[in-house]
């Protein structure tokens, strides 16, 4: 399996945020992590990509303790697309994507080809010389996915990758990531969307992972009312599907 968490606890400023969380992501799986605001999802994600250290528990990627690896090596195994976007510095899209090669040696032309292929794959073919800050929200996210692609990892972490996007771009990004076939753990807000895209999903509440499994089994009205404090009713509603061509 790619990613395995067992008994992971995280404290921020000595306040416990995550308690003994456990989850796993297997090869090629798309796994969603859902839960109400402040339940510790992002904290858990940041701990997986080493922005934070766990106070207890073990996180392994490809069988090795992530926090015991060199920084470079863990970045060769795990790529991240987060909400946070680079500041107002004038990096071009090509430069942003090339940053994905930071954990590797420079390879000049080979790197340029990797970046070009990644940009083509996310549909930003003629965007390499545009200034990143001038892109639309959807284009920015696609550029960041391209950066994750050139990082050539077998695990991808997405922390609310679609929260600033309209519904069409949300679907596009999620489709894109699904089609990559890379083991993915994604924090998603929209439960219907999570259910539609993931193979399995985990529900977090108050710092604990409460349940995990196929969305149909996990997202019961009982669990949703317990976790979110809302009544969930299944009924016919508008369902959005991406049109194949623009």
């Amino acid at each position: 399996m790619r990613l395995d968490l067992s008994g992971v606890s995280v404290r921020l400023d000595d306040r416990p945020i995550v308690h003994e969380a456990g989850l796993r992501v297997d090869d090629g799986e798309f796994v969603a992590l859902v839960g109400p605001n402040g339940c510790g999802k992002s904290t858990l994600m940041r701990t997986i990509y080493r922005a934070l250290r766990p106070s207890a528990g073990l996180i392994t990627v490809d069988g090795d303790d992530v926090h015991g690896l060199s920084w470079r090596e863990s970045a060769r195994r795990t790529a991240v697309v987060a909400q946070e976007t680079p500041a107002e510095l004038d990096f071009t899209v090509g430069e942003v994507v090339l940053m994905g090669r930071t954990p590797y040696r420079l390879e000049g032309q080979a790197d340029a080809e990797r970046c070009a292929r990644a940009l083509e794959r996310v549909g930003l073919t003629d965007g390499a010389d545009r200034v990143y800050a001038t892109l639309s929200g959807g284009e920015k996210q696609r550029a960041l996915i391209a950066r994750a692609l050139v990082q050539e990892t077998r695990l991808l972490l997405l922390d609310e990758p679609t929260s600033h996007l309209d519904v069409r771009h949300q679907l596009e990004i999620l489709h894109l990531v699904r089609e990559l076939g890379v083991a993915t753990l994604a924090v998603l807000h929209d439960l219907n969307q999570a259910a539609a895209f993931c193979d399995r999903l985990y529900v977090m509440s108050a710092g604990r992972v409460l349940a995990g499994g196929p969305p149909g089994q996990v997202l019961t009205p009982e669990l949703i009312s317990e976790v979110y404090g809302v009544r969930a009713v299944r009924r016919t509603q508008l369902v959005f599907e991406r049109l194949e061509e623009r």
Partner: protein
Amino acid sequence: MTGDTRRAPAQATSIFKGRAGTERRFGLLVGALAVAVVASTWLAVSIGAIPVALPQTWGIVADRLVPGLVPRTWTPVQEQIVWDFRLPRALLALLVGAGLAVVGAVLQALVRNPLADPFLLGISSGASFGAVLVLILGISTLGGLPLSAAAFAGSLLALGLVYALAQRSGRITPSRLVLAGVALAYLFQALYSFVLQQAQSGRAAQQVLFWLMGSLGGARWEMLPLPAVALAGGLAYLLLQHRRLNALSAGEETAVSLGVNVHRLRLTLFVLTSLLVGVLVATSGAIAFVGLIVPHAARLLVGADHRRVLPVTALLGAAFLQLVDIAARTVNAPQELALSIVTALFGVPFFLWLLRRRSVDRAVTVA
């Protein structure tokens, strides 16, 4: 959307077509800036109360390096002025201008704040305090070396204090670094203002004031090696780290996810820039604005990639301070202007223009 990926390798170069163009432009720009650096230095060596014709300055320098190479067409006085005073001063201007500008560029990436400059971390105020003590207590100002040593000691003291305040379990964060730096800058300013106020001699006070606003007037050959080595070493290290600097300026979490040991990098950059500022301020006093505006100008020319920003910043800073020093020596001759006066006259209009041109607001809140 489902693009034909088999075509991708063939297209790779065409997608990055702009890259080759950018590289060529970058090469031309570096060449042009190098010419500007040499030309401004040449000018600086010939201009002054006793003018020396441009060809003669070459002759004097060539004669010193390889005696007898060119026929002597100059007087001994001219030779002494060029070799003993103007040339070291001009070279120091290049080193200080390049160094302050590079430090500014690095600090702007380190604390992710476009308003960061070499004086943000309180290091220069510490250096000034050391210098003021020496000048007022009148230990010795001959040769400038005790003054430099005291200024450097002051900057080390400030470095230690800023680090002690800014770190928590060995890690420094940008916001704590800025707060600690600003607080200590005020403390040291208060201290040297107090010393100045207590000073009996008006002449010493005036000398201090002049030094505080930056002057290259004390340049001697023996002052050059230390800043030269510090700048060359620092710049070489930073160029090797250019990808990590890029990642860091894209944000802490991004840098971590790209495999950068952010805490160690920040610490290294903090110590490196502090030492560099200490060395530079010790030779020339506190010259404002160079470290603030030159990196911005460089980014306007070549974008945000530190592989291009750092060399362009260094060359631009060197040429800029050379021209500033020429202006400072000539505009109000025989009186010299303090360098910060001239840099502010250039710097403030440029900065206001920059402020209007870009929305700095969002970026400023980061720190």
